[in-house]
């Protein structure tokens, strides 16, 4: 079930009614759990078995890990959990990719081999719930907290429908404590939750699906090169589409959850206002980047094992982060590019720190330089540079294969300049309007929050802006199209 569907509207209304009836807290949690299974099963019912398997095994393994004092046994129980979760993920997500590359490798070695094409359907959200359950067993293994005694609370933590299929990737400490005591949204939470749901749907339905998907899909789907302006427009369109699609989903998830009285962690913080790539990853898919930091980068040694090892760890983390998004070399390249940019940024910062003038020198320089460098403008230009580089990486993320990605880049940088013009003026105007609007909004909101803005404005202004978003959603009429991140 997707948030932008009539089915969800009906489901959500019924669930809200059930959640606000005077049932016991346990009954309400059972309702939420059953509703979450229904939410998931309406895509492809048999895949619910995988979810159950993961839930049951991780619940049991975590208990065994906590009970045991024997190091070897604890490792064994953890290994069972890791093998099951990562095994399922590998089979369903990377089975075809591995076989394809194995076949290519054999053929490259001169061994004629043709594997039967595997007919594997990817279960929706498997990458997300695998990470959710993994963090639980790993944290119990690290003795960060005791295992959850209630199976109901644990199953609801794994399956809770707002985060189940596309995040935010919740940690046990984010959600399990909230299930321990009865919760119901206050009227303020309910209104704010509905506002966030509207904002998320506006981003998804109006901007991502209504305006940006068509030109991006059109240009990226063409088998021939295009004019440089069209190539840039398509990449900018995708840049807006991917943020509005995924950021929209997270905003909907947070809003829906709030209406039920539960808070989910923030997943996006105006990423296109990022100054540099480390800042970008503090603002883009925050729950994934923190997961990768805590369960991959730091266990690899982080930045504590010397300078060279830090760069290696960064690259490994970003390459695997890229592969997490999909079984294709393009995603690996995308992750690799982010890794390279992070390394270059780190090198630059290190060099800048070393070559920083002495305090007295700095005061002299500042006193003699007239006018003093405008820090805000400099930061804005750095944010634009970051946005430009992020857009280049998006080419690999969106293009169906490597050759198509290279063709787009050659068009963008004028190496192929004779391609035809393909996008209409209204499409170009929409892309320009959305890109400027998005950059402007992200920059102006860089250190603020939507809630703060909502609270500062007079109620009639907030109400009118809310109504405008709803009207545009109704007018766009693009319902039930899937979210891009579901495929990951």
């Amino acid at each position, binding site marked *: *079930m*997707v948030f932008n*569907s*009539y*089915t*969800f509207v*009906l489901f959500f209304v019924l669930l809200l009614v059930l959640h606000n009836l005077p049932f016991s807290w346990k009954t309400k949690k059972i309702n939420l759990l059953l509703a979450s299974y229904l939410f998931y*099963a*309406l*895509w*492809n*019912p048999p895949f619910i078995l995988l979810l159950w398997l993961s839930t049951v095994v991780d619940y049991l393994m975590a208990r065994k890990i906590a009970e045991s004092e024997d190091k070897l046994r604890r490792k064994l129980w953890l290994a069972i959990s890791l093998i099951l979760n990562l095994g399922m993920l590998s089979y369903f997500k990377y089975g075809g990719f591995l076989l394809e590359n194995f076949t290519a490798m054999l053929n490259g070695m001169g061994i004629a081999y043709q594997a039967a094409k595997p007919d594997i359907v990817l279960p929706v959200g498997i990458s997300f719930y695998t990470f959710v359950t993994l963090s639980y067993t790993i944290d119990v293994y690290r003795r960060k907290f005791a295992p959850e005694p209630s199976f109901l609370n644990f199953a609801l933590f794994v399956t809770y429908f707002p985060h189940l299929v596309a995040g935010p990737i919740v940690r046990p400490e984010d959600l399990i404590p909230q299930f321990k005591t009865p919760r119901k949204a*206050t*009227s*303020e939470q309910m*209104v*704010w939750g*509905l*506002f966030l749901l*509207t904002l998320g749907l506006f981003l998804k339905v*109006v901007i991502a699906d*209504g*305006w940006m998907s*068509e030109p991006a899909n059109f240009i990226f789907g063409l*088998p021939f090169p295009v004019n440089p302006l069209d190539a840039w427009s398509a990449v900018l369109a995708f840049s807006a589409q991917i943020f509005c699609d995924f950021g929209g989903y997270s905003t909907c998830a947070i809003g829906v959850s709030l209406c039920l009285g539960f808070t989910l962690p923030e997943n996006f913080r105006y990423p296109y206002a990022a100054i540099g790539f480390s800042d970008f990853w503090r603002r883009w898919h925050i729950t994934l980047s923190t997961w990768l930091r805590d369960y991959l980068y730091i266990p690899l040694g982080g930045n504590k094992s010397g300078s060279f090892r830090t760069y290696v760890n960064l690259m490994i983390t970003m390459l695997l982060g890229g592969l997490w998004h999909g079984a294709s070399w393009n995603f690996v390249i995308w992750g690799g590019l982010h890794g390279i940019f992070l390394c270059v940024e780190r090198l630059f910062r290190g060099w800048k720190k070393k070559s920083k003038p002495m305090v007295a020198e700095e005061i002299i320089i500042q006193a003699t330089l007239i006018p003093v460098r405008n820090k805000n403008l400099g930061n804005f230009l750095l944010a634009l540079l970051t946005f430009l580089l992020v857009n280049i990486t998006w080419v690999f993320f969106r293009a169906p294969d490597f050759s198509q990605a290279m063709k787009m880049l050659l068009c963008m940088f004028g190496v192929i300049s004779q391609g*035809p*013009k*393909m*996008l*209409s*003026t*209204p499409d*170009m*105007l929409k892309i320009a309007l959305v890109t400027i609007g998005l950059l402007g909004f992200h920059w102006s909101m860089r250190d603020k929050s939507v809630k703060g803005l*909502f*609270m*500062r*404005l007079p*109620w*009639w202004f*907030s*109400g*009118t802006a*809310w*109504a405008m978003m*709803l*009207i*545009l959603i*109704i*007018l*766009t*009429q*693009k*319902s*039930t199209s899937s979210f891009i991140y579901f495929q990951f």
Partner: protein
Amino acid sequence: MKTSDYLKAGWLAFALVLAFVIGWELYWRSQGFELSYNDDESLWAFTRKRIYNTTPARPVIIGSSRVKFDIDQTQWEQQTGQTPVQLALVGTSPRPVLTDLANDPDFKGTLLVGVVEGLFFSGDGSPMEIEAKKRIDVYPKWSLSQQASFYLNQHLESNLLFLDEERFSLNSLLKRLPIESRAGVFVFPNFPIRMGYTKPNRQTIFSKAFVADTAVQHGVQYVWSYLGMLSNKKGVGGDTLSGIIQSVKVNVDKIRARGGNVLFLKMPVSDPALAAEQVSFPRKEYWDRLLSETGSQGIHFADYPELSKYVCPDWSHLAPADTKPFTADLIRIIEEKTHWTLQKSPTSNHPKQ
């Protein structure tokens, strides 16, 4: 902001949206538009589910817009007691759908294939094929959730005129703004907003405004001219044509091997589009060759005075008043040609003109 202000903002938004929806709906109703259903992936998938247990009286129809406009399903049902399964897709080649049905081992029914040469004989990977393939790709992934949304949406669409994506969605209205496009860019032209409407059975019908107003008809003719309907450019030939016909034969043979039937239909078309078609796609080289090489039967409108007596107001599709007698004659001719039993009681039910 206080809690009471949150509530005030929420209630204001609700009131404004409600007022807008009522006003928007009343506005379009006051303009005299007919209710239309979105002919989208979901409606196609819903119809695709009905292809099993088809018979000559309840055939599956594939093709392009001509069979969608010209075969009147109400008339068909009146004469045969059965409703055909309309799977034709506007502006596409029916060959991908033919392949899809041929590869479905459970499809053993009767298939009527509308042939518009410019679309049917388009090469592999053409936009006409890609568009058709999009629908086919959606069908196996049409989830339970999407099906539930479709049923809810059908109820809303039955009552709200403005829920017509093709005519009244934001994108559709924005596309109608008089903004000049960049030189050299092909922009798909807009059909007049009053051209026609679609029924839940996927039948498309010209509107009353279209029939009454020659300016609207000229608007449609302009689109056809822009899209090259009057072009005398020769269609595909050589190996490409042989390959297309061969692929059709393979699919037709698969359906026949399971006990199914396939019949090709060439629907009416009027001058000057007819003249252009005769130059671009001479009958002998395309239609006749298709039938002989696939070993199939076909009904070409030009062979029957009953079917060729009509003038298509937009050159390409029949007027609503003509579709009923046309369908009645078509059913009779199919029976005579194939010896299939279609009608409940033959020779009856011909509509009064």
